[in-house]
């Protein structure tokens, strides 16, 4: 029991977000099928079950349009914080550390330690890939989610069109329609605003005990300091 409790405690952050993710997507499915069925019934069509709903493109596009924007947010955040600084923000590196930094600072190649990851120890393509692996993976998930949004979005849009006795559209036609760009940009703007707010508010505000905040007594000008 003690071992299990220790494991739970040491993985609390990922477990917490995993549980609330499942709860939120379940809630999205339940409320989404109710909304979908309102449309079905008002169009004189039969309502569908929850199981049927979670296999629809209407549900998939609502899920993936949010996924792509979240992964884009993290992708941009990971890459932008390499090069851009913000005086006073704990989200920024120190003002003299912009860029990819030295091998010594990054503990790679001859500066690697005994417990450094294997791909960080020797120069070559593995080190190049591993040095960018976070943005590569987050970027890949972003592009796949955005692609999935465009495909499921075109199906959901065509389904609505035909329900309203209008012609369906192809995927390439859908990419030029306001529906695709409205879904995309309304998510992007909120993510960008949230990041900018965090970068700026964390200069002046504190959250005691959070690594996302500077220690409470740290001066506003202190940059690159995490709690």
């Amino acid at each position: 029991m003690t071992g299990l409790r220790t494991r739970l405690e040491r993985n609390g952050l990922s477990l917490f977000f995993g549980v609330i993710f499942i709860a939120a997507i379940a809630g999205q499915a339940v409320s989404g099928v109710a909304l979908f069925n309102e449309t079905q019934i008002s169009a004189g069509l039969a309502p569908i079950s929850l199981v049927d709903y979670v296999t629809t493109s209407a549900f998939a596009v609502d899920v993936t349009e949010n996924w792509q924007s979240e992964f884009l947010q993290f992708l941009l955040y990971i890459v932008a914080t390499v090069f851009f600084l913000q005086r006073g923000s704990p989200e920024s590196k120190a003002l003299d550390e912009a860029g990819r930094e030295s091998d010594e600072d990054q503990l790679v190649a001859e500066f690697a330690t005994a417990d450094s990851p294997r791909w960080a120890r020797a120069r070559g393509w593995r080190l190049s890939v591993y040095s960018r692996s976070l943005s590569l993976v987050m970027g890949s998930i972003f592009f796949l989610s955005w692609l999935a949004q465009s495909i499921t979005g075109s199906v959901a849009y065509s389904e609505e069109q035909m329900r309203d006795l209008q012609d369906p559209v192809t995927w390439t036609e859908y990419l030029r329609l306001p529906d695709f760009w409205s879904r995309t940009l309304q998510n992007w703007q909120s993510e960008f605003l949230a990041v900018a707010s965090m970068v700026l508010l964390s200069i002046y505000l504190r959250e005691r005990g959070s690594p996302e905040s500077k220690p409470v007594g740290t001066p506003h000008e202190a940059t690159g300091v995490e709690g």
Partner: protein
Amino acid sequence: MTRRPTHRDVTVLLGAACVGMLVLTACAGRPAASAAAGTASAFYSAIGSSDGAAACGLLTPAARHTLESDADESCDEAVLGGDVGTTLEERADPRPASTVSVAGREAQVVLSTDVVFLTITGSTWRITAVGCDPRPQRPYRCVVEGS
């Protein structure tokens, strides 16, 4: 939202994404696209042989109800009589559908003489609108439609 992601975060997110996509791509056992064309053809076969009951059996309940309300007679008679019957009879064509588009639970079958809209009802395709003419920037106008 703005903490720096770790490898553990990525692993958890990837796992969640995989589970989500498995759920999303699960097959729901929907009728095939060709079955939508078959329903449209069967409807016009019934019209061609003056079998109103068979034609009405291929309409959604809403389309049947609208047809009966508008004509103030049973669907079996309304679908063969008046302007509706004349229009449908003129459009009855044994040639196969030229285009079948399916998106989710809706389908559009383009015949040489007509455009038919269908929806999944239960486990089969049923006709929501038939005898349809396009209008620029607006929905099709159909002699039979349920809403």
